[in-house]
């Protein structure tokens, strides 16, 4: 039973085929990267996996369970978290509240316990405190301490990306899907991102599925790579194999 696998994934929007027969497998503890030029279907694949799109065909399995076609919140509950390329933060909320949303599925208080939260000892209050303590280390890890109580809408882009990542981590996922973590960054920042991914994998024992437009970064970081172009898989293998693969080179150079 593989940890995570995608089999024959197809996604069509009207006349446009965004994904054409994409298949790959990810083992536990791996860093797996999907690369490809803009518009090659990487984010579409993520959206299919996380349940935002219903794939036209194909199967996605996680820990032996089929998850294709399920609603996003179900998939989240199974232990899959993701970030968004264009940052989908809760802009009016503070950093800590964004992270606490990540804790949503691990918490239980509903209407009644919420309304009657009078005093430290109540169930809702204890839950809040407990979970806030739990995410504190993420805040420290990603250097967000100084913006903990600021509304994220006001934060600079780079910080927002860290909050987005922190929020996904707050879910304590088994599989972390990161969509273009290095977008808009310079070389130094990219190196940091790569280092951070490695750290996360090591300390949290989380499997990482990465979309990365920047080929060098992906190749330097990942254990295994899948290259897409126009929705079709054009190469799959170790970073070395991919780097020298003629199709990959053509796809990137050809697109400018």
């Amino acid at each position, binding site marked *: 039973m593989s940890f995570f696998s995608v089999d024959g994934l197809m996604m069509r*929007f009207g006349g446009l085929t965004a994904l054409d027969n994409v298949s790959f497998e990810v083992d536990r503890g791996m860093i797996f990267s999907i690369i490809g030029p803009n518009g090659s279907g990487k*984010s579409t694949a993520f*959206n299919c996996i996380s349940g*935002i799109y219903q794939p036209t065909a194909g199967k996605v399995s996680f820990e032996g369970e089929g998850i294709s076609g399920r609603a996003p919140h179900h998939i989240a509950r199974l232990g899959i978290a993701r970030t*968004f390329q*264009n940052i*989908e933060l809760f802009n009016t909320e503070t950093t800590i509240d964004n992270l606490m949303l990540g804790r949503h599925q691990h918490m239980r208080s509903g209407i009644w316990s919420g309304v009657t939260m009078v005093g430290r000892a109540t169930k809702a209050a204890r839950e809040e405190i407990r979970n806030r303590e739990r995410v504190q280390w993420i805040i420290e890890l990603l250097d967000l301490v100084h913006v903990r109580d600021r509304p994220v809408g006001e934060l600079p882009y780079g910080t927002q990306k860290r909050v987005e990542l922190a929020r996904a981590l707050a879910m304590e996922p088994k599989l972390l899907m990161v969509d273009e973590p290095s977008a808009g960054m310079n070389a130094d920042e990219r190196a940091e991102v790569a280092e951070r991914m490695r750290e996360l994998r090591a300390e949290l024992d989380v499997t990482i599925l990465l979309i990365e437009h920047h080929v060098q970064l992906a190749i330097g970081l990942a254990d295994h790579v899948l290259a897409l172009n126009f929705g079709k898989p054009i190469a799959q293998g170790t970073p070395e194999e991919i780097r020298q693969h003629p199709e990959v080179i053509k796809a990137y150079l050809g697109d400018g």
Partner: protein
Amino acid sequence: MALALVITYKTTEVPNFAQGDMAMVSAFIAYTFLTDFETGFIFAFGAALVFAFFLGVGFEGLLLRRMRKPTHLNLIIMTLGFALALFGFAGWKWGADQRQFPFPVSANEVIRFGGVSISTLSLATILIAGILMLLVFAFFRFTKLGVAMQATQQDPIAARINGVPARAVVGLTFGISSVIGTVAALLTAPLITLDPTLMWDALLKGFAAAVLGGLNTPVGAVLGGYLLGVIENLFGAYISVEFKSVVAFLIIVIVLWFRPSGLFGRHHERKV
């Protein structure tokens, strides 16, 4: 009414909840011309339509354009606010009494077709609605301006690059739809008496019809209007008169449940 709403929505994605009351005020203007100044019908109606046009353009230019965060929710609230202010204004200026609205075509004369009788007014209304629908349809399809308006809705930036004066187009849109809305008001006023609540029912039904037909197709809107009218009256005739309006509500809900874009409309997905 549905037509007016759809024109605005299709081009600017603004559901203009103020349309009803804008038309109502214009109708009052016509009334004032007719009674206080005792001008002829054509002049009074013409004046009302001109007023309506500028009211529409003004609303858009002065208020809507200045909005900082034109989210759907905000737009709805904004137009509602304007509607409320207009409603209050009308009530304040003209009082809430109901008045008889003089009209060239009578609501009481009746023509008979086979076993069915239609009042001349209703006939005129149906005809005018049909004509307007065709005109608008042709306008959007065939004239440069109409195509420009559609382009502005689908992709404002691309439209602007291609030389479409987006702002003017938007203003114009509101002007035109305001005029059409006023036509509706002028046709409605003789049926029921003229007072500030004149267009409430029409606004709701107009939206219902527009939604039924699809909020972004003018043809759909008018067809939706006909359809809604027929269904409502059949319901009223055969089942119960009192709950006629409830039907409008139920119909919308049911249709939207199955076809969120209305019967003829098309939906645009947002990319993530």
